[in-house]
């Protein structure tokens, strides 16, 4: 049982603002991932909880207990550091045992717990070694083991996978998820890597410049971003963002973009009618632009023309770098497309899934409903381009 509540937490380092007025609840047993570009204050959020930084303002509650002035050692929290922070002069065993010793745990119990954790993590053979004699992956496991043996209320992870190579990272990601399921403890995990965030999180908290921008499940954050920043930050390759203007009638609203326009379906038109005349930012995810030859039938689209600058073959798909009326766009289309560099293509934009943000506030004007996921039926040619409009 471990619930964490940040209430209007602010942390300044001298003149720099690390965290500004953060209010966030972390539920018991959840795997919350804090994500944002580097320097956004996400590490500070967990360091504040660990008791490594003192708050400038606000309150932090751990299980409804105010812990603002509680020293780190009394918080019953474990943390895995980016560099692992293994004590170089201690053996693996002593590294894992250190926290327990500090808490006055009995020797036999220490031995039992360390051995058990080492078994789980498969580092039983390494207990006598010094950190310098371990590989990167092994060190990572020791750091994990050091946290596990503590049996803490909350696990904190500060970018623990960033020093691993790609393959190991994928493997460890899955193990961390399994570990979370098995331990049933609250995890708070900081990363700038959205793949890690999307794959492991039960909920995501997106931060920028010390400010929390959106909290939600990976699906919510991906499909229904609250603002331009979240839209652009989450998703790789990132969303195409184009300045435009919302015009038209409640029956048929249009987004006027540079050199072309997109007509919205009727029900969306109705919803955004009141914003007519506003400057907006139009967001189109690369995968929402389709080669007309390979598009699912139910997609309601509108055709735009562009010139292919570069194509990148990714195996299962192909990226097209387009120039559409002097604007650079990226489309992620079926690998079988025939479009090649230097050719003009016409692509179908899925107007149901276009994101519309207010250009002034950068807040979303209209979220679309989360799509049901019908089985994709590639290869079916669609009807006429204008059909949906």
């Amino acid at each position, binding site marked *: 049982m471990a619930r964490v509540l940040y209430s209007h937490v602010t942390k300044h380092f001298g003149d720099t603002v690390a965290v500004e007025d953060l209010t966030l609840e972390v539920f018991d047993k959840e795997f919350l991932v804090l994500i944002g570009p580097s320097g956004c204050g996400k590490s500070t959020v967990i360091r504040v909880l660990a008791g490594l930084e003192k708050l400038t303002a606000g309150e932090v509650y751990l299980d409804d207990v105010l812990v603002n002035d509680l020293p780190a050692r009394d918080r019953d929290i474990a943390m895995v550091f980016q*560099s692992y*922070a293994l*004590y170089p002069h201690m053996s693996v065993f002593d590294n894992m045992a*250190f*926290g327990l010793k*500090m808490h006055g745990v009995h020797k036999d119990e220490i031995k039992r717990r360390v051995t058990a954790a080492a078994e789980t993590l498969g580092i039983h053979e390494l207990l006598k070694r010094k950190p310098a004699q371990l590989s990167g992956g092994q060190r990572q496991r020791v750091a994990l083991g050091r946290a596990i043996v503590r049996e803490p209320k909350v696990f904190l992870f500060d970018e623990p996978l960033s020093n691993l190579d790609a393959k190991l990272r994928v493997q460890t990601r899955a193990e961390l998820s399994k570990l979370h399921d098995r331990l049933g403890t609250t995890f708070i995990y900081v990363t700038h890597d959205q793949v890690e965030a999307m794959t492991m999180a039960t909920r995501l908290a997106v931060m920028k410049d010390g400010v929390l921008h959106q909290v939600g499940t990976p699906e919510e954050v991906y499909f229904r971003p609250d603002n331009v920043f979240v839209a652009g930050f989450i998703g790789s390759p990132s969303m195409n963002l184009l300045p435009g203007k919302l015009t038209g009638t409640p029956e048929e609203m249009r987004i006027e973009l540079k050199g072309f326009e997109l007509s919205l379906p009727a029900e969306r038109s109705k919803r955004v009618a009141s914003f007519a005349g506003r400057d907006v930012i139009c967001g189109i995810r690369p995968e929402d632009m389709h080669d007309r030859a390979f598009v699912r039938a139910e997609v309601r689209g509108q055709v735009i023309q562009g010139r292919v600058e570069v194509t990148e073959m990714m195996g299962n798909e192909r990226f097209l770098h387009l120039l559409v009326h002097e604007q650079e766009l990226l489309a992620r289309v079926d690998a079988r497309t025939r479009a090649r560099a230097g050719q003009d293509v016409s692509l179908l934009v899925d107007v149901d899934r276009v994101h519309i943000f207010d250009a002034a506030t950068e807040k979303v004007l209209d979220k679309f409903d989360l799509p049901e996921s019908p089985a994709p039926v590639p290869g079916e040619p669609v009807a006429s381009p204008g059909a949906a409009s």
Partner: protein
Amino acid sequence: MNSSGHRLARRLTSERAVAIALIVPSAVAVAVFVYGFIAWSAVVSVSEWDTVRPDYTYVGLDNFRDLFNNFRFQIDIRNTVVFTVLFVGACLGIGFALASLLDRHVRGEGLFRSIYLFPMAVSFIVTGVVWRWLLAPRAGVNILPEKVGAGSIDYGWYTDPTVLYVHADTRLGEALHSVGLGFLANPNYGVPLAITSVVIAATWQMSGFVMVMYLAGLRAIPDELRDAARVDGASEAQILRHISVPLLRPVTLSAMIILGHQSLKIFDLVISMTRRGPGFATDVPGLFMYETTFQGNHFSHGAAVSILMLLAVSVLVIPYLFWSLRREARL
């Protein structure tokens, strides 16, 4: 490719010869002035040279035998041991204390650091002159308390001939005797109080250096390690004990070697501050060597003292050099 490659290879070999040639002047100078001279001194130390005129007649180890029977040299050995222990201990203690305080995000750290370190820039002679007056029995710190109306201190500092040692007729002395260590109950194994004055001056001069070394050592410990220990539940004191101190062990070793070899060689400070002191209480081999050689004209004895000093330093330094060069090679 071939012809130019060959030319390059040939040039590289010839350049290597040039490289070796460039290091030759220094190597030769050191070979002669360090190793050659040491050998020469060694020859003098087994010779009869006893006046201003050189006399290289071989006399075996007689001079060394004389030395170990010379009571002044025996006192010097005692003084060196006492001085080394006190001086190294005080420097490490104060240096570490200051470093760990300064490491706690102190405002004006730079200023404090400069103040603690500035004595390093001053010569031992200056230090000696100044501290001779500061610790003079009728002046200096003895009359300092008067300024705040606390009355003066009547302590002899470097003029105090007292040697603290276990007297044979005390219970401790008898206890030592009963376990076969009776010889320790002798002023030759005592602590001459006067030497503490020299220790104070030397510590004033060198502790800043230790502080800088420790500070650099502390800064080299990643913050994350301390954070990890904090999260693991260690208090600040426990972090010091379990994390900082063990990780600073190489620094401690370096500092000990450097201070230790300095205290074996010490000469300037003693000659300008106390000279031999009451009953040789502050006499050291360096001074003994200098006086024996250039005042008493016992060149062979002087050379023997210097060879013994060299041996003592070598025992300390050579393993350390191996250790640090190997460590460096590993990094």
